[in-house]
């Protein structure tokens, strides 16, 4: 019962926070709610025995990505932002689309049948800690995607430099 209550708390808070994130007029508020949301999601990960993932959720998402967002949000003219309409077009249409998609997907996942369990049971992970377990397979079995990820990050650096740093004159 306790885990269910625990989950219930997280679920309700996550959903409410998500709604707040997408509906707040002030972008700074949205980002702040997002921050809180990330902490809750990290909590959920802990609950699912994914300590390392929870840690990078906080460090990378909350610590790096959201700060980046905040920087850019602060570039904007917030005063003007608060005056204009936050939604564009008819939001009920979007609501209908997303709710229909939701119903469709939820209907489909009722038939989810899990594959047979693998060898990384909760006990096995706890025995050598999640970080070690993850590190072992990340640097052996998943070495190849890991290397690709490094190139992806390099691209991000180049991209940020090309797009944001250089001030270019228009030919005119």
């Amino acid at each position, binding site marked *: 019962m306790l885990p269910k209550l625990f989950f219930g708390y997280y679920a309700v808070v996550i959903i409410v926070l998500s709604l707040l994130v997408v509906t707040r007029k002030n972008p700074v508020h949205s980002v702040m709610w997002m921050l809180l949301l990330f902490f809750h999601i990290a909590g959920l990960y802990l609950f699912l025995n994914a300590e390392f993932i929870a840690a990078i959720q906080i460090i990378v998402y909350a610590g790096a990505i959201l700060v980046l967002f905040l920087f850019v949000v602060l570039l904007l003219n917030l005063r003007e932002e608060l005056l204009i309409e936050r939604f564009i077009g008819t939001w009920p249409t979007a609501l209908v689309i997303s709710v229909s998609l939701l119903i469709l*997907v939820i*209907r*489909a*996942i*009722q*038939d*989810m*049948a*899990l*594959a*047979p369990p*693998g060898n990384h049971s909760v006990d096995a992970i706890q025995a050598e800690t999640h970080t070690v377990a993850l590190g*072992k397979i990340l*640097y*052996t*079995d*998943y*070495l*190849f*995607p890991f290397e*690709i*990820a490094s*190139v*992806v990050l*390099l*691209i*991000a650096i*180049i*991209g940020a*430099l*090309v*797009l944001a740093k*250089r001030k*270019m*004159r*228009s*030919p005119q």
Partner: protein
Amino acid sequence: MPEFVMPDLAPVMPEIVMTILALVTLIADIIFKRKETLAILSIASVVLVFFVLFGTPFKTTFNGMFIADGYSLFFKLIFLLNVVLTVLISMRYLVIERVNFGEYYSLILFATLGMMLMASAGDLIVLYLGLELMALSTYILAGFITYDMKSNEAAMKYFLLGAFASAFLLYGISMIYGLTGTTDLNAISEYIILNGLTANPVVMLSMILFAVAFSFKIAAVPFHMWAPDAYEGAPTSVTAFMSVGPKAAGFAVLGRVFLIAFGSVRMDWSAVLIPIAILTMGVGNIVALSQTNIKRMLAYSSIAHAGYALLGIIAGTGEGLASVMNYLLIYAFMNIGAFAVIIMLRTEGFKGDTITDYEGLAKSHPLAAALMLVFMFSLTGIPPTAGFMGKLYIFMSAVYAGYTWLVVVAVIFSAISAYFYLRIVMYMYMREPKESVSLAATPALGIALAITAAAVIIIGVLPSAVVSFARAAVAGF
């Protein structure tokens, strides 16, 4: 815990070489002042990779995550060709647009690396990372002219919708992972068949989400909405690059995922792809009719061509796949050829991208007009150009797979397409020039045009070499 054994690196050699050379190009940017050197360096890199590619054994490595086979080889050739042609048409263009920066070339190489990984991906994780590598590089390239609002807008739209589509892809990956406990394409297929999950809604859901994400990449209706804007706004050389590379890569993963991982639910995914293909051909060809910007018109044309190529996937046979590959190769030649002519019209202070700019081109620049004529004929599919052969093989494979009615639809739409392609020809040959158009012709552009035009005609007259190569490539699929 067993000792870690370094996997066999031989099959990945082209990608490794590509990465190193892309990095070299990146560093060389600091050393060389003349950016043309980088262009030549990147072409040399691609040529080197080309040779490495042919020395690569057909093997699977990294626990099945990376597959080097004939199928991926053929697609990689298209990607490399795409790089060579794009770089050739970019050199002068970048100077004119005043964005002659070295990062351009390394980004193109990195994007191509992403495509090569996609073509070889045997695992959804590698597929996802390759796709993102390609997509992120392409977003940057699309927004490369940072002072130009149109380029910003194009990149922004492409980026946001691309991120939106990747989220769908990830959702699909997560669903199929939950159901089968694996992300390996072959293992997924085996699991689905072994456990009789061919009617399971989760498989369907996942398949639909994959279809959405891949349709986005190949710009199939209704997931094409980014394409016209991104193509119009992006730098023209990047448009040429985007219309061939990412599209071909999208087809590469579409073919592999649908024919291998979802091979057992073929009837279901063809039920999804058939309406998409019809809509794609219809919307692409019909909306192209009323375009006034030639880049935008070619964007819709590119959408329509994705529709034709989908027929080969729908056919679901080896022959169908071979004809898709053949088609994409031909499309690379004819489309980049057309873009090369468009780029030639871009000079200092003259955009040269509206259709009326082509009025009377045959009078002022007969050779350029003649080349454009060849490419337009080929895009229409008039024999004896390569475009005709491409379409013919696709249609034949669909007919043999029992989709004659679909081919009839495709032929009707293809007839409509003649109207807007030949309109360009009519403008060039039947109208008087309004203003004097000068051309920014360079030796590099000349080489690109010579390669593309020669290929379009030679493949049109002697298609059997390319076709049998494509057939041999899918033989080991």
